């Protein structure tokens, strides 16, 4: 039996390496091609001109103003979308668990609804709503964070709901309340620290989603980093490929960090 298991483990490890290497090469090929494409000089030589411009932010803003506005817009969009998603979702989900359990199915249904409504469909219906947004707060690209919060709801809801399921919110909050804490204190000092990694993971997912969003921004004629990359592709293919590569690498680093945050939560649950 032990010999059988050992032989299987060896066979599985061979299979693992073959499959991971094969697909690793296939999936890294386009990324390598992007690197080659952006460092291609005249007559087949290496040239880092594109990357020199890319890291020289003052020159970048001057040479490619679209890119600069897009990056700035995306930066604010990330901040505001994460803030709104968390401020809207965390208290609501906690409150529903504590005081309004009957509404839980409804909140879950509404939060997961954007999964069945493609962004391309949502943008059709958002156009008249954004006419009002322009009327009240202006037509800045940053106002897109309302729509992005909707797009992020399903992912953020799942993360936060999973985090809350792992702790006993009710007992914790009753203990705090019986010791004289107000609801704000319960939220801020008792519940939040206990679901920190879930909140972090919701925030990371929102960041990745906002950085990658193109559909709504493009069709509502706003700027963000993806719209800028797409526009740049028409005039300067090399720079747009360089920004694409940088964006992919940044997103990878973000998610790789997240995988460590996820592990910590895993361990906490095991020991408790």
């Amino acid at each position: 039996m032990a010999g059988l298991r050992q032989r299987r483990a060896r066979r599985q490890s061979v299979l693992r390496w073959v499959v991971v290497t094969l697909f690793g090469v296939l999936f890294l090929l386009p990324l390598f091609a992007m690197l080659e494409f952006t460092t291609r000089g005249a007559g087949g030589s290496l040239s880092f001109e594109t990357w020199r411009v890319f890291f020289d932010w003052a020159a970048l803003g001057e040479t490619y103003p679209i890119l600069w506005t897009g990056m700035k817009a995306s930066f604010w969009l990330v901040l505001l979308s994460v803030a709104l998603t968390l401020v809207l979702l965390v208290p609501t989900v906690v409150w529903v668990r504590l005081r309004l359990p009957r509404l839980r199915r409804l909140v879950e249904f509404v939060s997961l609804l954007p999964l069945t409504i493609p962004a391309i469909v949502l943008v059709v219906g958002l156009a008249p709503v954004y006419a009002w947004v322009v009327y009240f707060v202006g037509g800045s690209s940053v106002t897109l964070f309302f729509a992005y919060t909707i797009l992020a709801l399903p992912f953020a809801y799942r993360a936060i709901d999973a985090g809350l399921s792992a702790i006993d919110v009710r007992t914790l909050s009753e203990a705090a309340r019986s010791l004289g804490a107000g609801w704000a204190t319960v939220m801020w000092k008792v519940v939040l620290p206990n679901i920190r990694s879930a909140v972090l993971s919701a925030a990371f997912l929102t960041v990745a989603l906002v950085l990658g969003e193109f559909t709504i921004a493009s069709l509502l004629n706003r700027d963000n980093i993806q719209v800028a990359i797409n526009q740049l592709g028409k005039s300067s293919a090399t720079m747009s490929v360089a920004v694409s590569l940088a964006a992919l690498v940044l997103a990878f680093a973000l998610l790789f960090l997240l995988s460590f945050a996820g592990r910590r939560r895993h361990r906490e649950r095991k020991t408790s």
Partner: protein
Amino acid sequence: MTAPSTGTLDQVTAPATPRGGRRRWWPRRDLLGVLPFFVFVTVFLLIPTLVVVIGAFGGDDGRPTLDNVAALADGYIVDAFVRSITLSAVTAVLGAALGALIGYAVVTAGPDSLVRRLVTSACGVLAQFGGVTLAFAFIATLGLSGFVTVFLRDSLGIDIFSGGVWLFDLPGLVLVYTYFQIPLMVIVFLPALDGIRPQWREATESLGGSTWYYWRHVAGPLLAPAFLGSTLLLFANAFSAYATAAALVSQGSPIVPLQIRSALTSEVLLGRENLGKAMALGMVVVVALVMWLYGLLQRRTSRWLD
């Protein structure tokens, strides 16, 4: 996994719901806590959805009509739906098969291994972040002056575009969509693969079952609902995708999302402003159907593999 906790919450709060008149205002004040959420969701999710649904059944003068929905039967719209569905189905099946293979290879490495962490992070990026950046990745790889194109032409004398530049048309979409469908499959299928217990295999072996027997009669049937469900999710993902196609396709609007774009942006279809809404409604119907089937399969999966 969350079901038991809801049960206890309901039991605890049910008797607390007051019947007497004195405390009847309590639940109403509690509702204030969820007011911001529902107001926001109403304005930015429910109203847009209603705009699409009502608009699909309304003429340009605002009177109800079935013209827009009837126009979905027009040749070019039907073609776009058929192409969209074919593209989604082909890439979903390809992505599911290859993604499941990678998923299985990764899961044998153990939950905290570096391989798994690297693969899942990379998959997360490629599956969800994709869009425009992936289109440019493929232009740099297989475009007219792309790395692979140039390499094959100069070193091996192979011209991959001898039959026309297919990258910027439907075949190109199949390729790039598969490139982000495989990683998505890895992500959504891993939890099901994690649910498979090694003891089941050992039990099969100790009863004399072969590897083939194990996959055919134990693991296969257990994973089948999860596999089908994930395939449906991939289908919905490809069907909803817009950015890649918008950045890659240079001419015409072969698939539904691009048709919606041209309905939204062009002035050619004057007098048919709501046609885009009808097409959008058509998309919602397809995705909702697929997600409903997914929900059914999900329930079946969780019976064994949660």
